[in-house]
């Protein structure tokens, strides 16, 4: 009813304008002034893009860039196979993701033609692509306001483009060379929408065809474009006016027949892509369509949604005024919008359209939607940022309203002021968010030159061991995978092929960066072929020589009435009491009550940490911890609360505190395979080791702790001539073993800590892995025949991770249940 009244009022106002209100004139088409306006806007947006991203020109190549540079460089050298594969197969033949993005590869190839390995050119292209997208943002706003607005549409368009140019969530797409998949996709996506709206306005079929072509190009850049038909349908519903005098049924057909074309194009694309990739959904993992049924909840993640309006990298320092100022501007926008709603007759449909578009455009990210505190994943919001910027410009400027002149002037003035402030704030945030990328770029440059120098100095046939390849710098990806290091150490990125001289401890397929296989590491350290070891130092951004650790091989602390007071307790004002007498305790601070053979520890609401006295440990040999305690919560003793108690230590590698969960294996015995943590194994001597109790309503009766070698819990084996020789006699209750073989192209390297803290994890029956059981605590298991061609050398397969497999063994008891921990995996390349 209300909207009906508003419509009537609009009609009245346009036909018989009362003197006090703005006359909705037709914008006069003065071509010269229009050209000037367009050129000025064009220049302003271009300047905004270049000024904002100028610093990224020096960023260089990072992370996945090398994967794509590898095949374009090979194509340039005459080996076209890798490049062409992108047109008929999985993108870059990736082992962790299924996707189809040939146009992105092609753009990389074109850049490489001009710029070779000079990253500047690639980044220049990225900035131009961003500018292109911003330009289309402006054009779309012009269409939207042209369809249902007034002359303020031009200002609105310019502001939307400017906001888009400096939106602080864009660095991941713009500052990272391969981030251009989103830029390319968005450019064609926006161009397609603009052409369609143009077509619906002036009915020139060429625009329809242009729109369809852009859609296909967008799809060929990234799958995110799949939402375009839905957005066009939304535009038809909410924006495009269709005059129709015939039957209602025919009206619907007339309105939606063009939309149908886009859906047909999408269906053809889907069929084509499915035929090539063998999967409908693709992306990360193999969930298929059923994944979608339950995973829509990921979009409700509050932290990610907050990042959209407060787009700041939490690992970068920002001035404290930014957050309140941003919120004040948004609140101002909301107030202005509400005012316009109640005061004038704002058209709600454009707002609805933009809002729905922003929501629809992120739907394809359902598998992975999450914006991390350091803005990793922010590229997923790239397309949606376009309608968001348009929406903000429309919220703040009354471009789709009919209101009184004085009100319109006031709203425009306040809106422009707020837009200017927002532009300034966003520019500031953008520069902050770009900092990690610039630093990462610099560090990568140092890293590669250092690697070349080190490799050059290494004799032939010998290796240099690179420990802990940097994964990222505050959200800006760096290297991580040995595969990328190998590419960077080969021509054309390096004058000579040094790859064969470099050895790393990184898993062949990315997993969690926090863990390491300690036995494997120890072997590498003692291998005489590895002449030198280097450890990446994050703070200085350089490789430092790795010094082997020293210290004791074991450590024991058993609670006695006398030694309790030697514990270093944090916080220091924790209260102490004698268990056999009345004692004072606190309901908030931690309390420690001393008994003859145990220490009762209440963590209180602050939690408590105990450091043991006289610790001097060699992390390589004392890499297994066992704590003896029983935990009591409000319902009595439980076994599920071990995660509340953690082992803690000061790690020279992590640059401070590190911790590991104490998982309960047998009641009262809480184990942790500390050697699995990089922060343990890559530390030099460990001088401080303790136990931390998280805050909560529980207490533990603590009796002691021991540190020792992992040999009693982790089986080891030797590979000889296609057979495994194993010995699990040291593991208590072992009766036989199971040999686990991972499926082709997958590894056991865990992404989480669960299979390191408890023997009961799913590893013994890991999904899809082959299991071969054998009785006896010592023996030999023959590998399947096809393993005879396998090698443990990663270079034997040209760093191709698609044909690797891993094997590991786990000791089992007489009932076939796993005991101890599964062994470290051995990677075999085919």
């Amino acid at each position, binding site marked *: *009813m209300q909207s009906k009244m508003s419509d009537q009022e609009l009609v009245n106002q346009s036909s018989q304008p009362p003197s006090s209100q703005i006359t909705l004139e037709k914008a006069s088409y003065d071509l010269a002034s229009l050209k000037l306006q367009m050129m000025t806007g064009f220049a302003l947006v271009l300047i905004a893009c270049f000024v904002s991203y100028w610093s990224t020109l020096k960023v260089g190549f990072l992370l996945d860039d090398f994967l794509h540079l590898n095949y374009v460089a090979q194509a340039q050298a005459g080996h076209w196979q890798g490049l062409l594969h992108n047109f008929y197969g999985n993108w870059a033949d990736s082992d962790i993701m299924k996707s189809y993005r040939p146009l992105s590869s092609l753009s990389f190839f074109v850049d490489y033609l001009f710029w070779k390995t000079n990253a500047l050119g690639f980044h220049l292209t990225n900035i131009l692509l961003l500018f292109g997208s911003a330009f289309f943002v402006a054009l779309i706003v012009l269409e939207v306001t042209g369809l249902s607005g007034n002359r303020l549409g031009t200002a609105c368009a310019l502001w939307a483009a400017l906001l888009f140019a400096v939106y602080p969530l864009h660095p991941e797409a713009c500052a990272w060379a391969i981030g251009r998949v989103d830029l390319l996709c968005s450019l064609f996506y926006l161009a397609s929408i603009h052409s369609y709206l143009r077509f619906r306005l002036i009915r020139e079929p060429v625009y329809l065809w242009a729109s369809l072509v852009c859609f296909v190009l967008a799809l060929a850049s990234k799958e995110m474009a799949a939402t375009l038909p839905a957005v066009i349908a939304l535009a038809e519903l909410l924006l495009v006016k269709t005059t129709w005098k015939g039957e209602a049924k025919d009206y619907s057909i007339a309105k939606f027949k063009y939309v149908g074309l886009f859906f047909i194009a999408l269906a053809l694309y889907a069929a084509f892509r499915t035929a090539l990739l063998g999967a409908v959904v693709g992306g990360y993992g193999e969930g298929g369509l059923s994944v979608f049924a339950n995973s829509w909840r990921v979009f409700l993640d509050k932290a990610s949604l907050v990042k959209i309006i407060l787009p700041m990298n939490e690992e970068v320092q920002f001035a404290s005024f930014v957050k309140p100022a941003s919120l004040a501007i948004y609140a101002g926008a909301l107030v202005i919008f*509400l005012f316009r*709603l*109640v*005061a004038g007759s704002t058209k709600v449909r454009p707002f609805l359209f933009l809002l729905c578009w922003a929501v629809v455009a992120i739907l394809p990210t359902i598998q992975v939607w999450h914006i991390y505190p350091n803005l990793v994943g922010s590229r997923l919001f790239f397309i949606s940022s376009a309608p968001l910027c348009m929406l903000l410009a429309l919220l703040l400027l009354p471009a789709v309203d009919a209101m*009184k002149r004085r009100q319109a002037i006031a709203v425009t003035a306040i809106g422009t002021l707020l837009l200017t402030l927002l532009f300034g704030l966003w520019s500031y945030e953008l520069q902050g968010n770009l900092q990690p990328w610039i630093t990462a770029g610099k560090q990568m440059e140092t890293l590669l030159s250092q690697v070349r120098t080190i490799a050059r100095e290494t004799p032939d046939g010998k290796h240099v061991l690179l420990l802990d390849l940097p994964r990222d710098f505050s959200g800006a990806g760096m290297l991580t995978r040995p595969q990328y290091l190998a590419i960077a150490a080969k021509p054309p990125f390096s004058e000579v092929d040094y790859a064969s001289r470099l050895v790393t401890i990184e898993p062949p397929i990315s997993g969690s960066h926090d863990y390491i296989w300690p036995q494997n590491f120890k072997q590498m350290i003692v291998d005489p072929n590895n002449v030198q070891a280097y450890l990446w130092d994050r703070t200085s951004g350089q490789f430092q020589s790795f010094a082997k650790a020293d210290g004791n091989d074991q450590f024991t602390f058993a609670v006695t009435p006398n030694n309790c007071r030697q514990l270093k307790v944090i916080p220091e004002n924790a*209260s102490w*009491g004698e*268990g*056999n*007498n*009345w*004692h*004072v*305790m*606190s*309901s*908030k*601070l931690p309390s420690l*009550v001393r008994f003859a053979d145990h220490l009762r520890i209440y963590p209180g609401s602050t939690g408590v940490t105990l450091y043991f006295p006289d610790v001097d440990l060699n992390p390589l040999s004392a890499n297994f911890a066992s704590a003896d305690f029983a935990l*009591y*919560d*409000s*319902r*009595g*003793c439980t076994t599920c609360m071990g995660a509340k108690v953690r082992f803690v230590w000061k790690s020279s590698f992590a640059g401070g505190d590190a911790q590991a969960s104490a998982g309960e294996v047998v009641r009262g015995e809480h184990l942790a395979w500390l050697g699995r943590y990089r922060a343990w194994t890559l530390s030099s001597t460990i001088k401080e080791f303790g136990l931390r109790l998280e805050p909560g*309503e*529980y*207490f533990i009766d603590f009796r002691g702790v021991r540190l020792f070698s992992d040999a009693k819990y982790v089986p080891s084996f030797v590979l000889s001539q296609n057979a495994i020789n194993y010995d699990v006699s040291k593991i208590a209750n072992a009766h036989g073993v199971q040999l686990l073989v991972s499926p082709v192209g997958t590894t056991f390297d865990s992404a989480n800590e669960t299979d390191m803290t408890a023997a009961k994890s799913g590893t013994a029956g890991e999904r899809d892995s082959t299991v071969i059981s054998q009785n006896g605590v010592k023996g030999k298991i023959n590998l399947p025949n096809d393993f005879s061609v396998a090698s443990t050398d990663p270079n034997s397969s040209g760093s191709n991770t698609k044909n690797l497999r891993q094997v590991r063994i786990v000791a089992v008891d007489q009932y076939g249940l796993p005991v101890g921990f599964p062994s470290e995996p051995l990677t075999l390349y085919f």
Partner: protein
Amino acid sequence: MLFCQAKSENEKSALCRRGIDLLFVVLLLGLNLLVYWRSLSGYFLADDFVHVAYLQRVFAGHPEMLLQNFWTNWMQTEGTQFYRPFISLTLALDWLFWKANALGFHLTNILYQVGSTIFLFLLSRRLLREFGDWQATLCAFLAAALFAVHPLHPEVVSWIIGRVDSVCTCFSLAAFWLFLKGQQEKNRLAYGVAIVCFVVSLISKEMAITLPPLLFLWCLFAPKDEAQVRESNAVLERLRQAWARTWPFWLTLGLYLIVRTLSLGTIAGGYTGSVGEGLSGSLWKRFFEDGGMLRVLFPFDIEVFSPFDHLRRYLKTIYIVCAASVVVRLLWLRADSGLSRWIIFAFGWLVLSLIPTYQVWNLTDNLLGSRFMYMSTAPLCLLIGLLVFPLVKAVNRETLDQSRFKLIQRACALTLVVLVLCYATIAYKNNLTWVHAGQEVRDLREALEAKLSSLPEPKKLVLMNLPQRIGGAHQIYNAAMLWVLMQWPLCVNNLSSRILTFEPMMYGDSELVNIARLRNLLKSAQNYDIYVWDSQTRRLVALNLAGAEKLSREIKLPGFSVVSLGADQFLASPPIDISSMATDFVDLDLSATLPSQAKNIPPYIFLSWTSAQKPLFDGTRRLALPATLDGKNHKYRFAVSQHKNWALTERVNLVRLDLPTPLADVQLNGMTFLSGEKLIPQLFADENYLREDADGVSRLTKEKAVFEYDASQIDGADSFVVEVSKPNSWFEHYSGQMRDQELSKHALTRIVLKESKGKFEIQSRVFPMPAYYQVRLACLNKQGEVIGFVSDSINLQVSEFAGKKRLSGKAKIKRYAI
């Protein structure tokens, strides 16, 4: 606009209006469903069980019982006096269709709530029609929407017997609306139906008696053209006219009062016994001091919304905006002369509707008792609507700046919409407590069924507690309710006789336990499996109380001293291991000095304890005593065994003392755990004369009650006094505990015995009426003071006795109803 295709303009607008009306009605229905759809999975709760048992009897061949309600006390209960025959009819109708399926009852409840909402909408629109169709409709809709989602309503909507209020309100509002229709359209039929609706609402709940004064008030406030008043002598003429138009309602009210008085034997009614006495004593406090009035505006269940919940802040902000809009309107739209009259009228209606609740009005912080506000929320919502939404008559509107008026009106409507959304969110969350309460009762029934099915036949299950309530949602608070729950038709087999309970008979502190009865039971522990219901995990937890050995000697803990005790600090004991069942008292000898700046706070000592099952100190096991902290030695005695929390601990591992902090020079001279053998006389019912049932009540099998007693261990006793309580009164209701150290001032009669051990009898004629009674024993010294403590009471039910034929019929389970 489907409705706007009629041909003539008049037809078109009439159809249009009807279409819009329908739209608003559907919206109101939608709002109600939005908040209450979860209630459909609810269950019978608290007093509902009384009605289930009643309906069960009615449909087992006693339909005349429904009619009896028209001339007797409602359901012929004792302890309450109400006249609500229509409610039983509505319940019977539900039973007819749904039997014991709670879904049907909840559906009907929602229907009455929807009915009340819609009649409030229609009524408000009619009241405000002088402001023009569109404005009146919008304002009425917003008021009705507020009512639909008002957060004080879950008790009425989601508690089956809570419908008493919604039925009464629904028919009251309908009567008011029909009265207006009759008056404004000169429609006699509507007027007649209005009287019928009034009668129905009267026989649903007594609250409806406010309708005639309300109609009278309307006649005084109605616009002149509607009031048909001559210009001269206006006030008197108005009064006369008002009487002329409302006298049939007054007459109906008079007739109702006569019928009701004849049926109940009293004009007031309500709650009687010690429950009624408790309610009358705290009227002022309940209304004003405990923040009850403020809770009407901030209806947050404290157990659902923390004091820091963001919704509280939002609601406060919305109210501020509402207040600002009132100010803005007063400043800018001063042409609302007609409106202030309606605001005063709505306020008058609100006050009128609150008056009859004077005896029971008690809105606790978990919104218990919010049903008493149900009828009042109708005028309250109308009042909010009228205050916030600016209404201006068409004549006055021409003088206003149109665009400014429109702006303000839209902004105010938006504010009210936001308020509706906020209320809806709060109401939905408040309502969930009722849904969960119902689900827990269902779970309890299933758990009991499962346990009993595996328990060999002669053995019985002792259930030491019942789920009392979640937030403000009642669950089961006495044995009679559990009896119905575990009986056909709610339970497939009749299992009630196999479950023993320790709950209060009607109403009381469920935390207290009659330890003498429990110890008596444990003498043949092999016949019983003892369980407590764990509400958190929703399962029955077995208790091992069989080892209730006697405390062979007093157990003493050593002393301890500390110079100062800071904030959040407390004293924890060394490990102990004592049987909780065998310990009656914990004695404490303590001296400490409270710093002068803390002396205005009344100091308390808190005792908490742990067991193997619950090794942490928590707020649920805690007893308090007032303390004197003047630096001198004082002795304190915690009577622990009367508390379920202590008695059911099995074995106590650690104790803790919380003292007021900061505290200086704390000197704990010792703590002693001792049995009450030499302090509490023992009293037993003679099984030949009194039969103890599963609910712990002894019922007379002959014309007298005979008791055995033993006070021979009490040193220095000179005489022994037996106290009998007043009917339906419980000694512990007056003192709040079972360990009284003086004779009760509320005893019905006393019998003095000279021997320290033996038998005594009470003739049935001592009991003046069929009711519950308590009997207990105290030992007195020569000065007539009680030595030690009075004994645990024995509960009696006297239902029929020789000589007096005042009651006919068989002994029934006595009921407690609202």
